[in-house]
């Protein structure tokens, strides 16, 4: 079959004999005839005469300096070649030519076939060198080395779309490459080689080396296999020292295998490896295969060591970069913490000072995170009336804290001239509606208290009800009559008006009523009322602290900012903060 007729993309895990490439017919006939003891030189001469191209090539290769079978005298005919070389050697030489010509140079698009032949020649040369040491026919060893991985070329030939995998496959040691072949092709070169040996009718000893040099499943062949087969295994590792990424490891495996199987001293390997590059060049010239300049073994190892050193350097550099990045992260985190601490300080400064003796208003704010979205404030107008507020910005974190600062500042600034809580919130609302983003809003309860006559004007915009609580437990709730600020410019803010009298007016954010006091149990309005009555006899600041403490001491983490404010006339019995 002509190799040109084979279509690409055939499944490699179900190869049929008909899919395999075919060698030149005359060559394979010579191989078969040489294997037959009954063949004489006349018959071989007749076979050779049927294909003059093959004959000329056989004689050229036989006379090449690498093979040098003429021993200084040129061999000029096939019968002469049989006489000088012997049938078996001639057969092996013809096989080398046959396999070389079975797959044409450009029949696998995108596949660098020269690098394949370079590796095969390296195996062949290694086999020839090692064969001499272990007293095997070194010419037969050469042929076995050249043929042992031919199955791989056949797999690429049948699936040329895998050609791009070759450079990576080539850099692997024999065992890893074997596994990669399984993954890529679903088959391996020894199995394909076995089929090929059968199809081409290769001599049994060569067929055995080709089929079994990876043992049962990529391992080493054992004592039941021929010495040629086990040599092919060693040769695989020996040649891979030049191409595998893990050269040192490959070299160690190679030395161990040769010592274990053939009992040779480890130094033998290095001695041969030194000679391999020049012999590969000579063999390539002899067989007419194009291989590039071969690096000396010492240079190959030096290059590998340099690469290893550079990889180590890269690793060190990577580690250094990582250290720098971590340092940078820590620096930025510290910087951020400093910024947050500053923001916390500014936020605290927005809360009113509470050290005025005999004051009417007290508050506590406990942020759930670093910064609070809740706020409270109070201040006295020149006429003695007191403005107070308690706000809760939707969401948490820096954006909530900024909106809290804005609302609180607007309240204090505009409150100095607008002396009606309803109108004041209306103005702040319009201002916020113009500028807030992402649906953020601010629930605010605000009031104006006149200590001269006890009147309170109160607006609740979106907060839980404000509670007016007497000492005997009587209470009144002032629910939100308006939605929070920042949603709708047209919102109206109706005011409640009542007399504070001897009651305490408690304003609080939902962090109080929704705060956990036990697992799965929130304080709630009723709980808050009970708690206020329980702590009723204490001074105002202590009362608020006790309420917040109840939530803070809960096993559940604080989930919301918690803020409470109390407006109350200072009592004569001393149950007041001062």
């Amino acid at each position, binding site marked *: 079959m002509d190799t040109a007729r084979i279509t690409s993309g055939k499944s490699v895990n179900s190869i049929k004999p008909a899919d395999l490439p075919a060698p030149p017919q005359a060559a394979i006939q010579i191989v078969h005839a040489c294997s037959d003891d009954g063949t004489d030189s006349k018959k071989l001469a007749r076979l050779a005469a049927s294909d003059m191209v093959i004959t000329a090539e056989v004689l050229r290769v036989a006379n090449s300096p690498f093979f040098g079978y003429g021993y200084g005298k040129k061999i000029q005919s096939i019968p002469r070649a049989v006489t000088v070389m012997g049938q078996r050697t001639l057969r092996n030489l013809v096989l080398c030519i046959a396999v070389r010509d079975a797959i044409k140079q450009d029949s696998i698009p995108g596949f660098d076939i020269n690098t394949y032949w370079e590796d095969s020649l390296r195996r062949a040369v290694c086999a020839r060198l090692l064969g001499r040491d272990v007293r095997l026919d070194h010419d037969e060893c050469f042929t076995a080395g050249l043929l042992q991985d031919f199955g791989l070329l056949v797999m690429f030939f049948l699936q040329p779309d895998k050609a791009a995998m070759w450079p990576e496959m080539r850099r692997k040691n024999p065992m890893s490459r074997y596994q990669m072949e399984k993954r890529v092709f679903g088959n391996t070169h020894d199995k394909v080689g076995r089929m090929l040996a059968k199809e081409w009718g290769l001599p049994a000893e060569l067929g055995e080396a080709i089929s079994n040099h990876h043992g049962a499943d990529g391992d080493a062949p054992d004592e039941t296999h021929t010495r040629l087969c086990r040599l092919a295994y060693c040769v695989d590792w020996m040649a891979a020292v030049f191409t595998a990424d893990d050269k040192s490891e490959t070299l160690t495996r190679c030395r161990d295998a040769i010592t274990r199987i053939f009992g040779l001293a480890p130094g033998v390997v290095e001695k041969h490896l030194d000679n391999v590059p020049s012999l590969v060049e000579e063999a390539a010239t002899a067989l007419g295969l194009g291989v590039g300049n071969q690096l000396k073994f010492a240079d190959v190892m030096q290059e590998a060591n340099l690469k290893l050193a550079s990889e180590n350097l890269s690793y060190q550099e990577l580690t250094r970069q990582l250290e720098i990045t971590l340092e940078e992260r820590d620096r930025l985190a510290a910087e951020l913490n400093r910024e947050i601490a500053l923001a916390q300080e500014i936020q605290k400064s927005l809360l009113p000072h509470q050290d005025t003796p005999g004051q009417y208003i007290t508050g506590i704010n406990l942020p759930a995170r670093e910064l609070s979205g809740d706020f409270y404030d109070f201040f006295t107008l020149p006429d003695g009336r007191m403005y107070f507020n308690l706000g*809760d910005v*939707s*969401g*948490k974190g820096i954006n909530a804290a900024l909106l809290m600062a804005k609302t609180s500042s607007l309240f204090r600034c505009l409150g100095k001239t607008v002396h009606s809580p309803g109108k004041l919130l209306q103005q702040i609302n319009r201002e916020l509606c113009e500028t807030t983003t*992402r*649906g*953020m*809003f601010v*629930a605010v309860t605000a009031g104006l208290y006149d200590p001269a006559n006890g009147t309170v004007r109160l607006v609740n*915009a*979106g*907060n*839980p009800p404000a509670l007016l609580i007497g000492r005997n437990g009587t209470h009144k709730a002032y*629910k*939100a*009559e*308006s*939605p*929070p600020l920042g*949603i*709708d410019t047209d*919102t109206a803010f109706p005011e409640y008006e009542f007399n504070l009298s001897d009651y305490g007016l408690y304003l609080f954010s*939902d962090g109080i009523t929704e705060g956990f006091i036990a697992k799965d149990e929130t304080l709630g309005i009723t709980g808050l009322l009970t708690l206020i009555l329980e702590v009723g006899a204490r001074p105002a600041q202590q009362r608020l602290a006790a309420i917040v403490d109840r939530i803070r001491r809960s096993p559940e983490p604080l989930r919301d900012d918690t803020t409470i404010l109390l407006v109350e006339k200072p009592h004569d019995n001393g149950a007041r903060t001062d």
Partner: protein
Amino acid sequence: MNYQIRTEGQYTVIALRGDVDLHHSPKAREQILKYLGDQCHVMVDLADVAYIDSSGIASLIEGFQLAKQHKLQFGLVGVSEPAMQVLKLARLDRVLPIHQTISGMALVSIR
């Protein structure tokens, strides 16, 4: 929280389920803004909402404000009891259009 999108008449209905809290509300917000961005009239179905916090409410408010800006309809439908409590407590029931059902609603422009 999870959500489902359906079309009912001229409305894209975004049905939220479970807890609409700080952790999950960004997902709700993303859907609301996406459909309003596509010039759809949007109804948010809160029938299966078990809990909604201020971040969830903020997503609804943002939708309401954006719809107003683009002259689109936006509202809440089938609001569950827990969600209604939060809305009422903050008096947001006075701001956000709330409907029992969508069927029979006339398409009117929001003030």
